[in-house]
């Protein structure tokens, strides 16, 4: 058994403290906030639970025994997932033509491509630019940067329609690349990366230059390793943004290119087809599939996400 190693003085201190009665006060504020937060969290997380259990409930249970939410009348079933993933209709549900259009596997991959590919490419391009704006001196650097920053005041809506036609003109309208490439011009991420790069001591770069490093070497040997936290955080946000985006993919691939849809567009379609009790289970199952990657990522990188969010709030 591991013992508490303390000095005798400390022990005496403990005894005295106990004797003198400076007891740890029960902080009422803490108790109240704990209680409130507990209740709040229970209420706030209940939709997750409802979604999860709802997705495991068969369609006939949903119609006939709607009150048995957590213990479905005829037990848990994966029929909703089968309906989505395999197109296998459960017996007795009748005719559901729309299920034929569900290509959730393809959508999932499209979303992955959009979210991961877009993020990685963006980080690369943006950090290159941020490097140039921070460490390379060139004419009109500050003017150019100020111009780019000033463009942040123009909301995305102003360029969306132009972009849509632009992408069409470039012949990318049937390509998944269109999900990714227009995002490369994003300003905010580049700005944050640049802000971080600015905090890297210039001496470091200069001494590396003295050691004969080229700009490229400095970039990937010094700046990128140093900036990996900010890149990671930006990457997380980029991923979540890409994964959760609905408007742009919808604009791109419109009403029926369901090979190119992302999970979000597909899910919106599924929901619109599933506002009846026999199909809502499949929508919930879709929701679970849609949520899972982000949730897993959140659980794994929760600290980093919150930290990144906080720091963007403090700095930005």
């Amino acid at each position, binding site marked *: 058994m591991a013992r508490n190693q303390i000095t005798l003085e400390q022990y005496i201190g403990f005894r005295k403290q106990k004797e003198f009665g400076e007891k740890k006060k029960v902080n009422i504020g803490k108790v109240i906030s704990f209680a409130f937060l507990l209740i709040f969290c229970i209420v706030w997380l209940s939709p997750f639970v409802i979604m999860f259990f709802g997705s495991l409930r068969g369609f006939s249970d949903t119609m006939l025994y709607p009150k048995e939410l957590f213990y479905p009348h005829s037990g848990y079933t994966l029929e909703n997932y089968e309906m989505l993933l395999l197109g296998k209709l459960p017996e007795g549900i009748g005719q559901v033509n729309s299920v034929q*259009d569900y290509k959730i596997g393809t959508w999932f991959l499209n979303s992955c491509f959009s979210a991961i590919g877009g993020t990685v490419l963006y980080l690369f391009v943006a950090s290159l630019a941020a490097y140039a704006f921070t460490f390379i001196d060139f004419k009109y650097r500050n003017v150019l940067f100020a111009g780019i920053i000033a463009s942040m005041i123009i909301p995305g809506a102003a360029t969306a329609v132009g972009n849509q036609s632009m992408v069409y003109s470039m012949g990318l309208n049937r390509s998944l690349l269109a999900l990714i490439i227009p995002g490369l011009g994003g300003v905010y991420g580049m700005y944050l990366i640049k802000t971080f790069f600015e905090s890297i001591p210039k001496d470091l770069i200069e001494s590396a230059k003295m050691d004969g490093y080229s700009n490229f070497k400095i970039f990937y040997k010094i700046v990128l390793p140093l900036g990996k936290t900010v890149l990671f955080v930006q990457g997380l946000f980029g991923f979540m943004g890409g994964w959760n985006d609905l408007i742009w993919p919808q604009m791109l691939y419109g009403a029926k290119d369901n090979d190119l849809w992302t999970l979000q567009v597909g899910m919106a379609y599924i929901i619109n087809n599933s506002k009846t009790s026999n199909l809502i289970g499949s929508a919930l199952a879709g929701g679970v599939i849609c949520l899972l990657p982000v949730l897993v990522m959140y659980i794994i990188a929760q600290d980093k996400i919150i930290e990144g969010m906080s720091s963007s709030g403090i700095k930005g």
Partner: protein
Amino acid sequence: MVLALMSTTLALVMVGCNKNKNDNKNDPTNTDSIVDDLPRDENGNFDVSLLENVQLNMWSVIGQPDQETLLALVKEFNKQFAGMIEIKVTSVGHYDYYNALDSTYANDYGNFPDVCFMHNEKNIEYALKGYFYPLDELIEKTGVGIDFANAYDNIEKTTMYDGKHYGIPVDAHGYLTQIRQDIIKKNGLGFDGNTRFIPQSYEEYQTLLEGLRAKANSGELWVRNINLDQDHSWYQLKDGNAKLDAAAQATVSNFYPAFFHSQESDNLTALYVNGGTLADANDNVTFAQNEGLTKYVTDLVERYNARLYGDAGNKEAAFPTGQVVMFSEGPWMVANTYDIWWNNKQLSTAGKLGVTEEDAADPVYTNPYTVARPYYMAAEGAPAETASKWYGNGHVITVTKKVTSLQKAAAALIFAEWLTQGQKDSGDYNLTDWCKAGHLPAWKNVYESDSYKAAAEKSITLTAMGDPAEIIALESSKYATTLIAGLTTAVGDVQAQLLSADGCTVDKAIQTLLATAQSTQEAINLLKLGIK
């Protein structure tokens, strides 16, 4: 990085090249893009056997359960014409067929189909967008034996614009009313001395609705559950009469004589039967002016408020339990439900599940449900020539402008001819096979053929639908989608208002109808402005 550079250059190049892509397609009547590459024999005649491996891409709007029938037919065709013509079918769910058509046309012309198997009400609208060829010229050039004289004029007209055919009609069908005849009989509400259970007129329908409601209200209405494995015994509706599983139980409060009519087809029947039109030749919206339709809408309100109509949840679920006695649905539904669910052998087995000897012996009780055309739509004052008819849509086969060789066009026409007019060795029309799935043939010779008649006798759907000549098809319009949507929205709105807590009054319903018509008019004006 390289990618970005490339994409920039690409952008500039693409902007430059994309300009002339769609130049000639906008004139719908143009057939210049077809190159005459027909193989001809030494006499200069074309014959199918000269074709070599012509592949056609066909988009089919047919969903389950008819899909299999169509695929089987196509398979048969491919077998017959092996080495000459091969048709590949892509099934696009009918919810998104037209969106897909549009977006593929605009974004992905390479994947645009050669042949469309689509709804006839959209034929002209899309033809006028320049998607399809006028076929008369092609038929002449290729000599494929399609004689439109054999087609029913009323159905054929949906494919025609300005005297030209843009599609080959295949079939027609309308929405049917499903009726629980066992309940009507048990409660003695049948007509002609309780021997006929299909209301044949507006008045009969009204009487039936009111009769059912009155009985239900007084607690005298007999109902039973005809779902498989459920208790089939008759019981009288009384509140608190909970002898069955609560979820599958008809009670006074959830009983309605009829379910809301579908928004898709019945309102058009109401419009056309009463002599109305959606719009006139100048695209002025006219449906709101039709008294019959107005009556239909106000009836909707009054019947709902009198609890003759209702929304009892899922109609397919409510119907077998007896919560609803009538509802309206497409003919495919009948096959679907009749065979799978309700052709219930248990009903003719006395002694089990509460089925009495008497029940088992009665043909009406053992076949508890029937279907019929909505004869009850013609209100007072409906024109005689339309009063006994009904609205129906159907399918057509079109040749798209993606086809640029006469060979392909010929192949497409051959397929259309084979499907609609082709006969098997037995003399049966191929179309009959298709019709068995629940469609009326658009061709007189098929309808009059013995094989069809034999098939129709067996099919409750075909029997119910009767003569294709009695179908009123949609008028051809460039704005068909908008017009139908307008009417559907109007009726849908009234239904939604009825369901809401505030409810709906006759005045409000008429107002909604007029306002929606006005808004539809505006939408059409807007579209006219936009499309140059």
